[in-house]
């Protein structure tokens, strides 16, 4: 292996001296981006890990290493509760975006044969993303509130006589909000994968007498799985780091790890914020690593 590599290197060096400069050029092209990421992404995260071991007193932190903040985190009901809530909300939103998004992706990616129409439908799904994320979150308030649009409509058509109060400022409102905001990240990759399925494969199955459900189970679903995984990565990364939707729609009833970090930073408890941050990083890393085991992101490009 090493022998082959060296002989290859020398042959390149002797045959074409002009290409010897190429590795330098690659390094030169990569240096700014890699440096930027190391300085402003990796260093801050390492700093966060380091600070999570600092000593937190009421108003400041000192760089004396201790496990105290970690012990506080894992013995406090508030923090542990936030960890479980984060995991629960993440799982529910993941499932709900998949359930809500998949049929739409199926229609756009597979059933709409007209290329222009399917592109137009996808664009229609993406357009809301040009409205500020925070405005989209806020838009759920007049929708779900006691005097909100949904309650008003349901009362008008006589389905209910009393407004449903659980719609807003509850865990349900957070889940509804997040599902709407993030489901497009599920629809996009799935529709993309479905669009790549060779129609003749489905035709062949049809000719052989397979019904829709059988075709769906044995052909469509397996071939769309990379899309599902990519969508799951997008949704997971975004939901796990969330704090704004729960802040706006739960009335402080739902505390995610993100909310804990924001509160702790607000009261200058940097070490506690850092511990929550490290826990969130580990959780996210585990989720993404697990999902990346199923599908190679570079190959799907």
């Amino acid at each position, binding site marked *: 292996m090493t022998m082959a590599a060296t002989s290859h290197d020398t042959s390149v060096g002797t045959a074409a001296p002009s290409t010897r400069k*190429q590795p330098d*050029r690659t390094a030169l*092209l*990569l240096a*700014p*981006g*890699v440096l*930027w*990421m190391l*300085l*402003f*992404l990796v*260093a*801050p*995260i*390492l*700093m*966060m890990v380091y*600070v999570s071991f600092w000593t937190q007193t009421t108003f400041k932190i000192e760089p004396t290493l201790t496990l105290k903040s970690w012990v506080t985190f894992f013995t406090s009901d508030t923090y542990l509760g936030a960890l479980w809530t984060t995991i629960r909300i993440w799982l529910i939103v993941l499932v709900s975006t998949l359930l*809500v998004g998949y*049929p*739409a992706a*199926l229609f756009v990616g597979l*059933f709409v044969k007209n290329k222009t129409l399917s592109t137009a*439908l996808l664009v229609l*799904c993406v357009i*809301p993303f*040009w*409205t*500020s994320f*925070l*405005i989209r979150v*806020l*838009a759920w*308030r*007049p*929708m779900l509130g006691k005097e909100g*649009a949904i309650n008003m409509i349901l009362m008008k058509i006589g389905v209910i006589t009393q407004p449903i109060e659980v719609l807003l400022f509850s865990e349900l409102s957070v889940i509804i909000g997040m599902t*709407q905001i993030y489901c497009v990240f599920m629809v996009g990759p799935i529709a993309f994968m479905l669009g790549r399925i060779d129609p003749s494969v489905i035709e062949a199955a049809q000719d052989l007498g*397979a019904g*829709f459900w059988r*075709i769906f189970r044995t052909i469509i679903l397996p071939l769309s799985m990379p899309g599902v995984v990519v969508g799951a*990565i997008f949704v997971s990364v*975004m939901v796990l*780091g969330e*704090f*704004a939707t729960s*802040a*706006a729609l739960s009335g402080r009833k739902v505390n995610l790890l*993100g909310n804990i*970090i924001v509160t702790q*930073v607000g009261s200058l408890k940097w070490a506690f*914020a*850092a511990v929550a*941050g490290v826990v969130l*990083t580990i959780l*996210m890393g585990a989720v*993404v690593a697990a999902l990346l085991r199923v599908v190679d992101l*570079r190959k799907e*490009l």
Partner: protein
Amino acid sequence: MNASGIKLGLGFYTALFIVFLYGPLAVLAILSFQTGPEGGPQFPIIEWSTYWYKHLFGLTPPSRIAPLPIEQALVRSLVLAVMTMIVSTVLGVTAAQAFRRKFRGSGVVFYLIVLGMMVPGVLVGLGMALVANTLGIDRHWWGTAFVLHVVYTFPFAFLVMLAIFNRFDPSVEEAAWSLGVTPARTFRKITFPLIFPGVLSAMLFAFTLSYDEFSRTLFASGRDLTLPLAIYGTFSVEVHPNVFAFGVLTTLFSFALLGTYAVLMGLSVRRAKRMAIQEEA
């Protein structure tokens, strides 16, 4: 196979899905025309008016409802988005250009870059605030927040350019080199015009993502608010329809941006076609 029935059902579902996507925004747009200042952010509409739009621009008599601090924030957000757009597009193009040649450790570098869009904003924001605190650096939207915006948008630009280069035919470049044109001039005259649609997309991505970004900005921007932070500030107080009116206006602004992008894209595609025809002739 009962495909037509399923197709009909799925079509109906997709229509519902689109209502689900747009419903809240439609309600928000309707309520932005609520009468003011006594009209609240809920139904029914007491009286249709443009009061809250005037309120945004400070054209209404003073009331107990504080105006949104958007004027300065808007300028900051736009400047920040332009800075982010330029830097992350340049980084994205150079990094993707490097990836056209196989090199050792490419997997590590790839994931290092993609990590920027993977790590939740609140984490990098916290990390950056800690670094700034420790080193005694002042946090500013044009400094600590700006570098984090690039961390976020550079991976998008990089992935867009990577996808463009994957479909790129290198033979035109080789032809130029073999004719003795320098690599720099080849890039300027041949490569860049051909990848320009991708560059435009990368720019659009970077601009809109940065313009809307707030979780990274929250801890890293210090005292001065950017636009999303000004909106986030309203979360903790009572919401008035002025926020809704503002939402409608920013959406219109985004559409203008999208329109500009579409026009530029159309022009560059047409130019690419014209070049292709000249080549054939």
